[in-house]
């Protein structure tokens, strides 16, 4: 110990400084990486409130203009059907995410817990559905849906999304169910619960993080989807937000302030849902129940 006390000061200070420098470097990198992610959103918002005369100024100004205007937001709701599109998208996305989780969970539970012939094959098939580019399937589905009279309906659109998202949800959720020790369910069965009771009392509460992230994933996919919406939905009344946003770019002029304002509004619901669910997105709920 005496030796340590006698060491010249710089020998103690240098490591401390280098440690601090290391932390600073990590923090700086984190800030830099985050800013890359956040900047487009910032730019979107700043552009939406910039007077239209300043939008194409060169060099562009990073800070918001002193003459910021919020009129594009009002214009959007007064002159376009944005409110209706938001409603349509919310309905379609929420329904799609809900049913994808519901049916995906059922499939995932069966794949995770039961041994049956064709189990391996069905897992491969689930993955194979993701192999084809959407445009390849869009045309046959268009024909199919038009025969069934499901074109131009939000219900039909949701159905089309479900066809894609249930397999994804099943694969995602299977991984979550696999992570829940089967002994927990066995203990519950012996303790006196039925299989369904066990599913609702033990398995589902423990897979909340998985369900939340799967729900969020499906919601965002359906919220952002454009190709199928474009093909299946014709009437502006039934447009989703992605169609509505695309409709702004005109043949001769595109009102960029309105486009950016609309984009900002469209981003908000997803952000809200993300914030609401992020509590569940943190894993670690299952730790401690069984000793591994």
């Amino acid at each position, binding site marked *: 110990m005496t030796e340590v006390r006698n060491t010249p000061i710089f020998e103690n200070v240098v490591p401390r400084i280098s440690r601090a420098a290391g932390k600073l470097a990590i923090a700086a990198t984190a800030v830099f990486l985050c800013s890359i992610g956040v900047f487009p959103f910032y730019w979107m918002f700043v552009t939406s409130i910039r007077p239209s005369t300043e939008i194409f100024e060169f060099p562009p100004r990073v800070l918001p203009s002193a003459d910021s205007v919020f009129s594009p937001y009002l214009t959007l709701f007064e002159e376009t059907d944005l409110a209706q599109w938001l409603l349509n998208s919310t309905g379609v996305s929420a329904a799609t995410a809900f049913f994808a989780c519901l049916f995906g969970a059922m499939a995932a539970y069966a794949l995770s817990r039961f041994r049956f012939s064709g189990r391996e094959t069905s897992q491969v098939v689930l993955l194979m559905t993701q192999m084809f580019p959407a445009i390849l399937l869009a045309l046959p589905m268009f024909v199919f849906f038009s025969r069934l009279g499901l074109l131009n309906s939000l219900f039909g659109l949701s159905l089309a999304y479900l066809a894609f998202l249930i397999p994804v949800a099943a694969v995602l959720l299977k991984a979550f169910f696999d992570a829940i020790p089967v002994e927990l369910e066995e203990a519950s069965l012996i303790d006196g619960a039925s299989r369904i009771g066990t599913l609702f009392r033990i398995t589902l509460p423990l897979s909340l993080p998985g369900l939340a992230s799967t729900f969020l994933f499906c919601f965002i996919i359906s919220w952002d989807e454009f190709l199928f919406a474009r093909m299946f939905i014709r009437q502006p009344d039934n447009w989703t937000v992605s169609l509505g946003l695309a409709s702004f770019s005109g043949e001769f002029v595109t009102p960029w302030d309105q486009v950016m304002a609309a984009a900002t509004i469209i981003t908000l619901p997803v952000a809200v849902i993300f914030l609401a669910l992020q509590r569940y997105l943190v894993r670690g709920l299952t730790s*401690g129940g069984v000793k591994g």
Partner: protein
Amino acid sequence: MATARLENVTKRYPGHLAVDRINLSIEDGEFLVLVGPSGCGKSTTLRMIAGLEHVTEGNIWVGDRRVNDVSPRDRDVAMVFQNYALYPHMNVFMNLSYSLRLRRVPRERIETLVNQVAATLDLSPLLNRKPVQLSGGQRQRVALGRAIIREPKLFLMDEPLSNLDAKLRVQTRTEITRLQRRLGVTTVYVTHDQSEAMTMGSRIAVMNDGKILQIAVPRDLYRNPANSFVAEFVGTPPMNLLSVRLDRSGSVDRLTGGGVRIPCPESAVEALEAVGQGFRVGFRPEDAVISGSNTGAGFFGQVVAVEDLGHEALVTVSAGNAQFIARLPPARAEQIRHGQRIAFGVEPSKLRFFDGRKGAAVAFPLDESLEPVRRHGSCPL
């Protein structure tokens, strides 16, 4: 409380026979231990009793009810899992009361029962904690509590101690045994640890390759193993075994093999002749007699290791191609040096014989008048 009975119970997986026609009768209030190496089918047997595995063939009875097709929840059994299987999203109170809540027991009654069990298992201050906030020993006690709170007909325990550290394991071992005696609940306990089996079980069933090899009280299992597998599996260190043949050419009948000659007890000669030439002789380490000179009861060997464990000493002796272990009091072992040449003998009545091919014990009339168990206590060196 109840009895349980397994009749020709078989479990077959595709391409694999896990449990092979086992018969087992568990008495009311008994603590039966299923012991065997990993993969011997002991856990599968327990899981079939619990209803977690389907029985391929045979019948399982709990009390006088055939339960083959009864779901786990209706069998009235409780199980403690190796990894405890506590519900991680529920606190200790909710974990303990889970089965009662499912049975719609009134709220006040649940509270009384939980408090009773918590007091018994020293869990009262922990009722509001989640499993993740508990130590290994505490989790183990919650798992036990969850089983006893239901007052089931049958306790099933699947290696409940294997995740505890050595000290806690010995302590909990005693706790479980005491609890079982007090509650008097028929218990089936699975372990791969023979010392756990010997200390806890009122009866022990040794399993290997899906078969029950022997069911006996611990002392019987140790003294009179039914076959060479049990002889080697039970006891630390295990029984000394040597492949020998009967040599009747001399004045005294001897067992020879691996360069060693051991006098054969007269009462066993007839039975051994019936077996033929291939058999194995075995004796427990504490039945070895070590002395400075060959008194005619054994053979000479060289000491290759002396392990002093404090309360006893293990001396490994090499003779011919074989090695034997003797258990001695430490004081006596102090005088034995590595490399020393010593006489190694066995009290003839302590020898056990096993069929060379099947491993089954060869029965012969035992001379019970030769009582002394620890011969080394008086042997001269």
